[in-house]
């Protein structure tokens, strides 16, 4: 009940500025998974979400790579936060993010060249993923190291989870496999469009529909509950 009016009435930014140091709670981590999920709630970083979720392996690889960059850049930004003048902060964040993207680029090549080929340019494009710059600007630059670490891990996990929920559905429908393992018999006719770009939009749309429906249902239940309570009182 208290949440929705708060969000619309532009209260959160000043509160965060006045009370900059968040205390570490379970919510610091879980927020990224659910309430502030970068993909399903904030709708950030849509480009890799749609482009590289045609198989679960690609989705997992991309999710972990992004998590690494999120955590690495978050930690460094948080460590240097008192040293970075406001005027050059974006340039500083971009250098830091680009560094970790380069590291992850080499790392993936060293781990698997097949995965590297499958993800293609989207690894380098993590640099411009707005989830990461957004986190650096809105969170890491204001918060202490340990809360930043946990929050970035949560955001990364939420992003990975979202990519996986698209990747698994698209791979099962479009290819009949999950993590490369065939699920159905010989007779399975793959729904090819699901692994093509339009499939990304279809599946993302379906997930958003489901989550919004769940959220609305919950809100309606809360409303009804309070209505009943008010009547009873």
């Amino acid at each position, binding site marked *: 009940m208290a949440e929705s009016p708060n969000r619309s009435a532009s209260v959160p930014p000043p509160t965060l500025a006045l009370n900059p140091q968040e205390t570490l709670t379970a919510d610091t981590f879980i927020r990224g998974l659910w309430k502030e999920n970068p993909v399903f709630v904030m709708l950030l970083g849509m480009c890799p979400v749609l482009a590289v979720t*045609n198989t679960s392996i690609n989705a997992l690889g991309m999710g972990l790579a992004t998590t690494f960059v999120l955590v690495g850049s978050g930690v460094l930004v948080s460590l*240097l936060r008192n*040293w*970075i003048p406001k005027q*050059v902060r974006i340039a*500083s964040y971009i*250098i830091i993010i680009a560094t970790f993207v380069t590291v992850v680029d080499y790392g993936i*090549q060293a781990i698997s060249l097949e995965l590297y080929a499958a993800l293609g340019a989207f690894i380098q494009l993590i640099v411009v993923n707005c989830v990461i710059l957004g986190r650096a600007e809105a969170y890491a630059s204001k918060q202490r190291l340990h809360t930043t670490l946990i929050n970035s891990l949560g955001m990364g996990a939420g992003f990975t989870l979202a990519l996986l929920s698209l990747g698994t559905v698209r791979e099962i429908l479009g290819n009949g496999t999950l993590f490369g393992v065939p699920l159905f018999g010989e007779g399975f006719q793959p729904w*090819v469009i699901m692994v*093509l770009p339009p499939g990304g939009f279809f599946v993302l749309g379906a997930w958003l529909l489901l989550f919004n429906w769940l959220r609305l249902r919950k809100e309606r239940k809360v409303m009804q509950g309070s209505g009943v309570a008010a009547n009873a009182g």
Partner: protein
Amino acid sequence: MSNDAHVQPQTPVQPAATPSWAMLRTLGGIAMISGLLVVLVEHYTQPIIAEKQRILTEKAVFRVLPGAVAKHDFLVTAEGRLVPAEPGVSGDPLYAAYDAEERLKGLAFIGVGAGYAGPVQVMFAYDPECRCIVGSKVLKSNETPGFGDKLDSDPEFLRNFEALDAGLNTEGTALANPIVTVKHGTKTEPWQIDAITGATISSRAMGRAANQAAERAVPAIQRDLATLSQPN
């Protein structure tokens, strides 16, 4: 003026403009940390990546030339000469594969053709005795799943590459007949590739890749066959 200051109590609280040296210090410091990190990671991962690349190429060569157990790397230089692959020499790679008795099993080279969704990179196997392409494996492609990716799996299409004629002209400088992809069901000559129905553009990419690669590699192979036949 003094009135203004009273009306806006926030203005004096704002810190003075950041001196330039602070910005320079920050950017310079961050750039240094970044550079150090990148160099360290590059230094550590480069040997691993090179080794992975080597294994991947070797696997592909042994797959297009079954029975091969060893390979030697050569390069076809821009002038069309064949030289052993060494660091510092540039050219198109050519792999000579040998069987267990150290006899030349065949050669492998890589061609690229523009496909439906970007370049299609293919490794071809070449048999110097029959003077024809005897195998293929797509190394890299973004072709549409279900259509274009049949290049590597459609048995009827792969039959094209069992003995695709790549004979040279009498001077030995170029292919006698360029390798071309023709419409499905109209293949009449041994240097033609019968396209896959529904994936004509991808099939044409494969034909162009084969023609381009053979045009470069085959004259060099036939001229220096003696060198290639010796494993060392």
